[in-house]
Protein backbone atom coordinates (compact mmCIF):
# COMPACT_ATOMS: atom_id res chain seq x y z
CA UNK A 1 0.00 0.00 0.00
CA UNK A 2 2.68 2.47 1.05
CA UNK A 3 4.67 1.73 -2.04
CA UNK A 4 1.60 2.36 -4.15
CA UNK A 5 0.93 5.70 -2.43
CA UNK A 6 4.51 6.81 -2.90
CA UNK A 7 4.42 5.79 -6.51
CA UNK A 8 1.31 7.84 -7.14
CA UNK A 9 2.93 10.76 -5.37
CA UNK A 10 5.97 10.53 -7.58
CA UNK A 11 3.75 10.23 -10.60
CA UNK A 12 1.86 13.32 -9.51
CA UNK A 13 5.13 15.17 -9.03
CA UNK A 14 6.28 14.20 -12.47
CA UNK A 15 2.93 15.24 -13.89
CA UNK A 16 3.18 18.55 -12.09
CA UNK A 17 6.67 19.11 -13.34
CA UNK A 18 5.77 18.29 -16.88
CA UNK A 19 2.75 20.55 -16.60
CA UNK A 20 4.96 23.36 -15.37
CA UNK A 21 7.40 22.67 -18.15
CA UNK A 22 4.66 22.96 -20.75
CA UNK A 23 3.45 26.19 -19.15
CA UNK A 24 6.95 27.63 -19.38
CA UNK A 25 7.19 26.49 -22.99
CA UNK A 26 3.88 28.13 -23.76
CA UNK A 27 5.00 31.38 -22.18
CA UNK A 28 8.12 31.39 -24.26
CA UNK A 29 6.07 30.63 -27.35
CA UNK A 30 3.78 33.58 -26.67
CA UNK A 31 6.77 35.87 -26.34
CA UNK A 32 8.35 34.54 -29.49
CA UNK A 33 5.24 34.94 -31.60
CA UNK A 34 5.78 38.09 -33.68
CA UNK A 35 2.16 39.05 -34.38
CA UNK A 36 -1.24 37.52 -33.98
CA UNK A 37 -2.48 35.98 -37.22
CA UNK A 38 -4.89 38.10 -39.21
CA UNK A 39 -7.81 35.86 -38.29
CA UNK A 40 -6.84 34.04 -35.11
CA UNK A 41 -9.35 32.02 -33.12
CA UNK A 42 -9.77 34.80 -30.58
CA UNK A 43 -10.51 37.28 -33.33
CA UNK A 44 -12.99 34.95 -34.98
CA UNK A 45 -14.76 34.66 -31.65
CA UNK A 46 -14.97 38.43 -31.39
CA UNK A 47 -17.00 38.39 -34.59
CA UNK A 48 -19.00 35.21 -34.02
CA UNK A 49 -20.02 35.54 -30.36
CA UNK A 50 -22.38 38.50 -30.85
CA UNK A 51 -24.17 36.62 -33.63
CA UNK A 52 -25.73 34.09 -31.28
CA UNK A 53 -24.38 33.44 -27.77
CA UNK A 54 -23.86 37.09 -26.90
CA UNK A 55 -26.36 38.72 -29.22
CA UNK A 56 -26.83 42.43 -28.54
CA UNK A 57 -30.61 42.31 -28.86
CA UNK A 58 -31.73 38.96 -27.53
CA UNK A 59 -29.15 38.41 -24.78
CA UNK A 60 -27.80 41.82 -23.82
CA UNK A 61 -31.14 43.64 -24.31
CA UNK A 62 -29.65 46.62 -26.14
CA UNK A 63 -30.85 48.63 -29.10
CA UNK A 64 -34.46 47.51 -28.89
CA UNK A 65 -35.93 50.89 -29.87
CA UNK A 66 -34.86 50.90 -33.47
CA UNK A 67 -35.20 47.13 -33.70
CA UNK A 68 -38.92 47.60 -33.35
CA UNK A 69 -39.50 50.92 -35.03
CA UNK A 70 -38.22 50.24 -38.53
CA UNK A 71 -39.18 46.59 -38.94
CA UNK A 72 -42.60 47.03 -40.57
CA UNK A 73 -41.04 46.31 -43.97
CA UNK A 74 -37.83 44.56 -45.01
CA UNK A 75 -36.43 47.31 -47.19
CA UNK A 76 -36.13 50.09 -44.58
CA UNK A 77 -34.86 47.46 -42.15
CA UNK A 78 -32.06 46.54 -44.53
CA UNK A 79 -31.09 50.19 -44.92
CA UNK A 80 -31.21 50.64 -41.15
CA UNK A 81 -28.99 47.58 -40.61
CA UNK A 82 -26.41 48.86 -43.07
CA UNK A 83 -26.48 52.27 -41.39
CA UNK A 84 -26.00 50.76 -37.94
CA UNK A 85 -23.17 48.46 -39.09
CA UNK A 86 -21.45 51.46 -40.68
CA UNK A 87 -21.84 53.66 -37.61
CA UNK A 88 -20.81 51.01 -35.13
CA UNK A 89 -17.70 49.92 -37.07
CA UNK A 90 -16.40 53.42 -37.67
CA UNK A 91 -17.28 54.69 -34.20
CA UNK A 92 -15.45 51.71 -32.73
CA UNK A 93 -12.44 52.41 -34.95
CA UNK A 94 -12.29 56.13 -34.18
CA UNK A 95 -12.79 55.76 -30.44
CA UNK A 96 -10.26 52.94 -30.35
CA UNK A 97 -7.68 55.15 -32.07
CA UNK A 98 -8.36 57.94 -29.60
CA UNK A 99 -8.78 55.77 -26.53
CA UNK A 100 -5.56 56.91 -24.83
CA UNK A 101 -6.30 60.57 -25.45
CA UNK A 102 -9.82 60.73 -24.01
CA UNK A 103 -10.04 61.86 -20.38
CA UNK A 104 -12.35 59.38 -18.69
CA UNK A 105 -14.57 62.05 -17.13
CA UNK A 106 -15.80 63.44 -20.43
CA UNK A 107 -15.71 60.22 -22.42
CA UNK A 108 -19.51 59.99 -22.82
CA UNK A 109 -19.64 63.39 -24.50
CA UNK A 110 -16.69 62.51 -26.75
CA UNK A 111 -18.34 59.24 -27.72
CA UNK A 112 -21.65 60.97 -28.39
CA UNK A 113 -19.92 63.56 -30.56
CA UNK A 114 -18.20 60.89 -32.66
CA UNK A 115 -21.39 58.88 -33.07
CA UNK A 116 -23.47 61.97 -33.83
CA UNK A 117 -21.02 62.99 -36.57
CA UNK A 118 -21.20 59.56 -38.19
CA UNK A 119 -24.98 59.49 -37.97
CA UNK A 120 -25.15 62.94 -39.55
CA UNK A 121 -23.05 61.56 -42.43
CA UNK A 122 -25.44 58.64 -42.90
CA UNK A 123 -28.46 60.90 -42.73
CA UNK A 124 -27.05 63.38 -45.28
CA UNK A 125 -26.09 60.49 -47.55
CA UNK A 126 -29.62 59.10 -47.43
CA UNK A 127 -31.09 62.54 -48.03
CA UNK A 128 -28.93 62.96 -51.11
CA UNK A 129 -29.19 59.52 -52.71
CA UNK A 130 -32.38 57.96 -51.41
CA UNK A 131 -34.80 60.64 -50.33
CA UNK A 132 -37.79 58.28 -50.12
CA UNK A 133 -35.94 56.05 -47.68
CA UNK A 134 -34.93 59.12 -45.70
CA UNK A 135 -38.60 60.04 -45.35
CA UNK A 136 -39.58 56.50 -44.35
CA UNK A 137 -36.93 56.17 -41.65
CA UNK A 138 -37.51 59.72 -40.48
CA UNK A 139 -36.35 60.43 -36.96
CA UNK A 140 -35.12 56.87 -36.47
CA UNK A 141 -31.88 57.51 -38.35
CA UNK A 142 -31.09 60.23 -35.84
CA UNK A 143 -31.92 57.82 -33.07
CA UNK A 144 -28.97 55.60 -34.00
CA UNK A 145 -27.04 58.10 -31.85
CA UNK A 146 -28.80 56.87 -28.76
CA UNK A 147 -28.79 53.25 -29.88
CA UNK A 148 -27.46 51.54 -26.80
CA UNK A 149 -25.52 48.97 -28.85
CA UNK A 150 -23.24 51.63 -30.29
CA UNK A 151 -22.63 53.32 -26.94
CA UNK A 152 -22.31 49.97 -25.22
CA UNK A 153 -19.64 48.68 -27.61
CA UNK A 154 -17.70 51.94 -27.43
CA UNK A 155 -17.76 51.89 -23.65
CA UNK A 156 -17.14 48.19 -23.17
CA UNK A 157 -14.80 47.35 -26.04
CA UNK A 158 -13.33 50.19 -28.06
CA UNK A 159 -12.14 52.08 -24.98
CA UNK A 160 -9.88 49.16 -24.05
CA UNK A 161 -8.86 47.45 -27.29
CA UNK A 162 -6.77 47.96 -30.40
CA UNK A 163 -8.28 49.38 -33.60
CA UNK A 164 -8.35 46.16 -35.66
CA UNK A 165 -10.01 44.16 -32.88
CA UNK A 166 -12.49 46.99 -32.40
CA UNK A 167 -13.46 46.89 -36.07
CA UNK A 168 -14.09 43.14 -35.79
CA UNK A 169 -16.13 43.68 -32.65
CA UNK A 170 -18.15 46.35 -34.42
CA UNK A 171 -18.80 44.00 -37.36
CA UNK A 172 -19.89 41.20 -35.03
CA UNK A 173 -22.27 43.34 -33.00
CA UNK A 174 -23.58 45.07 -36.10
CA UNK A 175 -24.40 41.82 -37.86
CA UNK A 176 -25.80 40.32 -34.66
CA UNK A 177 -28.17 43.27 -34.58
CA UNK A 178 -28.88 43.08 -38.31
CA UNK A 179 -29.97 39.45 -38.50
CA UNK A 180 -32.37 39.81 -35.60
CA UNK A 181 -34.11 42.90 -36.98
CA UNK A 182 -34.19 41.40 -40.48
CA UNK A 183 -35.88 38.29 -39.09
CA UNK A 184 -38.42 40.38 -37.21
CA UNK A 185 -39.05 42.44 -40.35
CA UNK A 186 -39.47 39.29 -42.47
CA UNK A 187 -42.30 37.98 -40.30
CA UNK A 188 -43.90 41.37 -39.85
CA UNK A 189 -43.94 42.10 -43.57
CA UNK A 190 -45.01 38.57 -44.49
CA UNK A 191 -47.91 38.42 -42.05
CA UNK A 192 -48.73 42.13 -41.94
CA UNK A 193 -48.60 43.06 -45.61
CA UNK A 194 -48.43 39.62 -47.23
CA UNK A 195 -45.27 40.54 -49.09
CA UNK A 196 -41.49 40.20 -49.07
CA UNK A 197 -39.45 43.20 -50.19
CA UNK A 198 -42.78 44.63 -51.43
CA UNK A 199 -43.30 41.58 -53.64
CA UNK A 200 -46.82 40.25 -53.03
CA UNK A 201 -45.82 36.68 -52.41
CA UNK A 202 -49.22 35.21 -51.61
CA UNK A 203 -50.87 36.79 -54.65
CA UNK A 204 -48.10 35.40 -56.82
CA UNK A 205 -48.81 31.95 -55.37
CA UNK A 206 -52.46 32.35 -56.27
CA UNK A 207 -53.76 32.95 -52.75
CA UNK A 208 -55.42 36.30 -53.34
CA UNK A 209 -57.53 36.27 -50.19
CA UNK A 210 -54.60 36.05 -47.77
CA UNK A 211 -55.81 37.68 -44.55
CA UNK A 212 -53.18 40.29 -43.65
CA UNK A 213 -52.85 40.89 -39.94
CA UNK A 214 -53.17 44.54 -38.95
CA UNK A 215 -51.55 43.93 -35.57
CA UNK A 216 -48.31 42.91 -37.27
CA UNK A 217 -48.00 46.29 -38.95
CA UNK A 218 -48.68 47.90 -35.60
CA UNK A 219 -46.23 48.19 -32.72
CA UNK A 220 -47.84 45.25 -30.92
CA UNK A 221 -46.79 42.83 -33.64
CA UNK A 222 -43.19 43.97 -33.20
CA UNK A 223 -43.24 43.27 -29.47
CA UNK A 224 -44.80 39.84 -29.90
CA UNK A 225 -42.58 38.73 -32.80
CA UNK A 226 -39.44 39.86 -30.97
CA UNK A 227 -40.63 38.19 -27.76
CA UNK A 228 -41.12 34.88 -29.52
CA UNK A 229 -37.82 35.23 -31.39
CA UNK A 230 -36.02 35.81 -28.09
CA UNK A 231 -37.73 32.74 -26.65
CA UNK A 232 -36.58 30.54 -29.54
CA UNK A 233 -33.07 32.00 -29.62
CA UNK A 234 -32.58 31.66 -25.87
CA UNK A 235 -33.95 28.14 -25.76
CA UNK A 236 -31.45 27.16 -28.46
CA UNK A 237 -28.46 28.84 -26.88
CA UNK A 238 -29.49 27.69 -23.41
CA UNK A 239 -29.26 31.15 -21.91
CA UNK A 240 -31.49 31.71 -18.87
CA UNK A 241 -32.01 35.06 -17.20
CA UNK A 242 -32.33 35.14 -13.43
Amino acid at each position, binding site marked *: MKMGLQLTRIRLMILNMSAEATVVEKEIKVEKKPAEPFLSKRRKNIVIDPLSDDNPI*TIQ*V*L*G*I*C*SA*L*AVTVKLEPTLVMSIAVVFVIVFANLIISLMRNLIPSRIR*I*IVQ*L*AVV*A*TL*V*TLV*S*EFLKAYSYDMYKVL*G*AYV*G*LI*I*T*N*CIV*MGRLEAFAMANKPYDSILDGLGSGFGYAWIILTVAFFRELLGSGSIFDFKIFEALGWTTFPTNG*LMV*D*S*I*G*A*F*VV*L*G*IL*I*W*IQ*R*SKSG*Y*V*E*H
Partner: protein
Amino acid sequence: MEIFNIVLRGIFIDNMIFAYYLGMCSFLAVSKKVETAFGLGLAVVFVLTLTVPVNWLLQEYVLKEGALTWIDGSFESIDLTFLQFIMFIAVIASMVQLVEMIIEKLSPALYGSLGIFLPLIAVNCAILGSSLFMVQKDYNIIEATSYGFGSGFGFFLAIIALAAIREKLKYSKVPPGLKGLGITMLITGLMGLAFKSFIGVAL
Protein backbone atom coordinates in the same frame (compact mmCIF):
# COMPACT_ATOMS: atom_id res chain seq x y z
CA MET B 1 -57.33 73.68 -24.27
CA GLU B 2 -54.98 72.90 -27.16
CA ILE B 3 -52.16 72.46 -24.62
CA PHE B 4 -54.24 70.07 -22.56
CA ASN B 5 -54.88 68.02 -25.69
CA ILE B 6 -51.18 67.86 -26.53
CA VAL B 7 -50.36 66.60 -23.04
CA LEU B 8 -53.07 63.94 -23.19
CA ARG B 9 -52.01 62.85 -26.67
CA GLY B 10 -48.43 62.50 -25.46
CA ILE B 11 -49.47 60.37 -22.51
CA PHE B 12 -51.99 58.02 -24.04
CA ILE B 13 -52.17 58.06 -27.82
CA ASP B 14 -48.62 58.89 -28.93
CA ASN B 15 -47.11 57.09 -25.96
CA MET B 16 -43.32 57.02 -26.24
CA ILE B 17 -43.09 53.31 -25.49
CA PHE B 18 -46.15 51.78 -27.08
CA ALA B 19 -46.48 53.94 -30.18
CA TYR B 20 -42.87 54.89 -30.97
CA TYR B 21 -40.83 52.27 -29.09
CA LEU B 22 -38.52 54.94 -27.73
CA GLY B 23 -36.61 54.54 -24.50
CA MET B 24 -37.06 50.77 -24.66
CA CYS B 25 -33.57 50.04 -23.33
CA SER B 26 -34.06 51.69 -19.97
CA PHE B 27 -37.73 50.72 -20.02
CA LEU B 28 -36.70 47.06 -20.04
CA ALA B 29 -33.57 47.33 -17.91
CA VAL B 30 -34.89 49.45 -15.03
CA SER B 31 -38.37 47.99 -14.63
CA LYS B 32 -37.65 45.18 -12.21
CA LYS B 33 -38.81 47.14 -9.15
CA VAL B 34 -41.51 49.79 -8.84
CA GLU B 35 -39.32 51.96 -6.64
CA THR B 36 -36.45 52.31 -9.11
CA ALA B 37 -38.87 52.59 -12.02
CA PHE B 38 -40.49 55.50 -10.19
CA GLY B 39 -37.12 57.23 -9.84
CA LEU B 40 -36.22 56.81 -13.49
CA GLY B 41 -39.69 57.84 -14.65
CA LEU B 42 -39.54 61.02 -12.60
CA ALA B 43 -36.08 61.86 -13.96
CA VAL B 44 -37.31 61.37 -17.54
CA VAL B 45 -40.31 63.68 -17.01
CA PHE B 46 -38.00 66.25 -15.49
CA VAL B 47 -35.35 66.18 -18.21
CA LEU B 48 -37.87 66.04 -21.08
CA THR B 49 -39.80 69.06 -19.80
CA LEU B 50 -36.53 70.99 -19.76
CA THR B 51 -34.76 69.79 -22.92
CA VAL B 52 -37.62 69.99 -25.40
CA PRO B 53 -38.13 73.78 -25.02
CA VAL B 54 -34.35 74.39 -25.01
CA ASN B 55 -34.00 72.40 -28.22
CA TRP B 56 -37.00 74.27 -29.62
CA LEU B 57 -35.20 77.58 -29.05
CA LEU B 58 -32.09 76.15 -30.67
CA GLN B 59 -34.03 74.90 -33.69
CA GLU B 60 -35.94 78.16 -34.08
CA TYR B 61 -33.09 80.63 -33.60
CA VAL B 62 -29.98 78.76 -34.78
CA LEU B 63 -30.59 75.66 -36.88
CA LYS B 64 -33.58 76.32 -39.11
CA GLU B 65 -33.08 77.71 -42.58
CA GLY B 66 -32.98 81.47 -42.24
CA ALA B 67 -33.09 81.25 -38.45
CA LEU B 68 -30.02 83.39 -38.03
CA THR B 69 -31.65 86.54 -39.44
CA TRP B 70 -31.98 87.89 -35.89
CA ILE B 71 -28.21 88.50 -35.97
CA ASP B 72 -27.99 89.95 -39.43
CA GLY B 73 -30.23 90.00 -42.47
CA SER B 74 -27.48 88.59 -44.67
CA PHE B 75 -27.61 85.22 -42.88
CA GLU B 76 -30.95 84.48 -44.47
CA SER B 77 -29.72 81.74 -46.76
CA ILE B 78 -27.83 79.79 -44.11
CA ASP B 79 -29.28 76.38 -43.27
CA LEU B 80 -27.64 74.59 -40.34
CA THR B 81 -30.13 71.72 -40.11
CA PHE B 82 -27.36 69.20 -40.71
CA LEU B 83 -25.98 70.14 -37.29
CA GLN B 84 -29.26 69.16 -35.65
CA PHE B 85 -28.17 65.79 -34.25
CA ILE B 86 -24.93 67.03 -32.75
CA MET B 87 -26.51 70.16 -31.26
CA PHE B 88 -29.47 68.30 -29.79
CA ILE B 89 -27.39 65.56 -28.23
CA ALA B 90 -24.94 68.11 -26.84
CA VAL B 91 -27.81 70.08 -25.29
CA ILE B 92 -29.25 66.90 -23.80
CA ALA B 93 -25.95 65.70 -22.39
CA SER B 94 -25.12 69.06 -20.86
CA MET B 95 -28.66 69.63 -19.56
CA VAL B 96 -28.53 66.26 -17.87
CA GLN B 97 -25.21 67.18 -16.29
CA LEU B 98 -26.59 70.55 -15.21
CA VAL B 99 -29.77 69.10 -13.76
CA GLU B 100 -27.70 66.56 -11.88
CA MET B 101 -25.55 69.30 -10.32
CA ILE B 102 -28.53 71.51 -9.43
CA ILE B 103 -30.45 68.68 -7.79
CA GLU B 104 -27.37 67.66 -5.84
CA LYS B 105 -27.05 71.18 -4.42
CA LEU B 106 -30.70 71.94 -3.78
CA SER B 107 -32.19 68.64 -2.70
CA PRO B 108 -29.87 65.84 -1.63
CA ALA B 109 -32.89 63.65 -0.88
CA LEU B 110 -34.15 63.88 -4.46
CA TYR B 111 -30.60 63.41 -5.70
CA GLY B 112 -30.37 60.20 -3.71
CA SER B 113 -33.36 58.77 -5.53
CA LEU B 114 -32.74 60.23 -9.02
CA GLY B 115 -28.95 60.50 -8.99
CA ILE B 116 -27.94 57.19 -10.51
CA PHE B 117 -30.50 57.47 -13.30
CA LEU B 118 -29.55 60.87 -14.59
CA PRO B 119 -26.41 59.83 -16.53
CA LEU B 120 -28.43 56.98 -18.05
CA ILE B 121 -30.92 59.45 -19.41
CA ALA B 122 -28.40 61.19 -21.69
CA VAL B 123 -28.51 58.13 -23.93
CA ASN B 124 -32.23 57.47 -23.56
CA CYS B 125 -33.80 57.48 -27.02
CA ALA B 126 -37.02 58.97 -25.64
CA ILE B 127 -35.28 62.25 -24.86
CA LEU B 128 -33.63 62.71 -28.26
CA GLY B 129 -36.71 61.28 -29.96
CA SER B 130 -39.06 63.84 -28.43
CA SER B 131 -36.85 66.67 -29.61
CA LEU B 132 -36.74 65.26 -33.14
CA PHE B 133 -40.51 64.70 -33.23
CA MET B 134 -41.07 68.18 -31.83
CA VAL B 135 -39.29 69.59 -34.89
CA GLN B 136 -41.48 67.57 -37.25
CA LYS B 137 -44.68 68.69 -35.51
CA ASP B 138 -44.07 72.42 -35.89
CA TYR B 139 -45.12 73.49 -32.39
CA ASN B 140 -44.72 76.87 -30.72
CA ILE B 141 -42.71 76.99 -27.49
CA ILE B 142 -45.61 76.46 -25.05
CA GLU B 143 -46.91 73.54 -27.10
CA ALA B 144 -43.40 72.12 -27.30
CA THR B 145 -42.99 72.27 -23.53
CA SER B 146 -46.32 70.58 -22.94
CA TYR B 147 -45.42 67.96 -25.54
CA GLY B 148 -42.19 67.28 -23.66
CA PHE B 149 -44.05 66.96 -20.37
CA GLY B 150 -46.75 64.77 -21.89
CA SER B 151 -44.41 62.30 -23.53
CA GLY B 152 -42.30 62.16 -20.37
CA PHE B 153 -45.36 61.41 -18.30
CA GLY B 154 -46.38 58.72 -20.78
CA PHE B 155 -43.03 57.03 -20.28
CA PHE B 156 -43.42 57.39 -16.50
CA LEU B 157 -46.83 55.72 -16.58
CA ALA B 158 -45.65 52.88 -18.84
CA ILE B 159 -42.53 52.02 -16.85
CA ILE B 160 -44.38 51.98 -13.51
CA ALA B 161 -47.12 49.76 -14.91
CA LEU B 162 -44.56 47.33 -16.33
CA ALA B 163 -42.55 47.29 -13.10
CA ALA B 164 -45.68 46.49 -11.10
CA ILE B 165 -46.49 43.58 -13.43
CA ARG B 166 -42.92 42.27 -13.29
CA GLU B 167 -42.94 42.35 -9.49
CA LYS B 168 -45.98 40.07 -9.52
CA LEU B 169 -44.49 37.97 -12.29
CA LYS B 170 -41.69 36.79 -10.01
CA TYR B 171 -44.11 34.34 -8.41
CA SER B 172 -45.32 32.73 -11.61
CA LYS B 173 -43.84 29.83 -13.54
CA VAL B 174 -42.36 31.01 -16.81
CA PRO B 175 -40.62 28.68 -19.30
CA PRO B 176 -36.83 29.09 -18.86
CA GLY B 177 -36.14 30.51 -22.32
CA LEU B 178 -38.91 33.06 -21.93
CA LYS B 179 -37.76 34.32 -18.54
CA GLY B 180 -36.73 37.94 -18.27
CA LEU B 181 -36.67 39.73 -21.60
CA GLY B 182 -38.89 37.35 -23.57
CA ILE B 183 -41.92 37.46 -21.30
CA THR B 184 -41.41 41.19 -20.78
CA MET B 185 -41.65 41.78 -24.53
CA LEU B 186 -44.88 39.79 -24.71
CA ILE B 187 -46.32 41.71 -21.75
CA THR B 188 -45.33 45.00 -23.36
CA GLY B 189 -47.17 43.85 -26.48
CA LEU B 190 -50.32 43.19 -24.45
CA MET B 191 -50.00 46.55 -22.69
CA GLY B 192 -49.62 48.20 -26.08
CA LEU B 193 -52.83 46.50 -27.16
CA ALA B 194 -54.59 48.09 -24.19
CA PHE B 195 -53.13 51.50 -25.02
CA LYS B 196 -54.37 51.12 -28.61
CA SER B 197 -57.90 51.58 -27.33
CA PHE B 198 -57.11 55.26 -26.71
CA ILE B 199 -56.75 55.85 -30.45
CA GLY B 200 -60.52 56.15 -30.70
CA VAL B 201 -60.50 59.14 -28.36
CA ALA B 202 -60.87 62.22 -30.54
CA LEU B 203 -58.78 65.10 -29.22
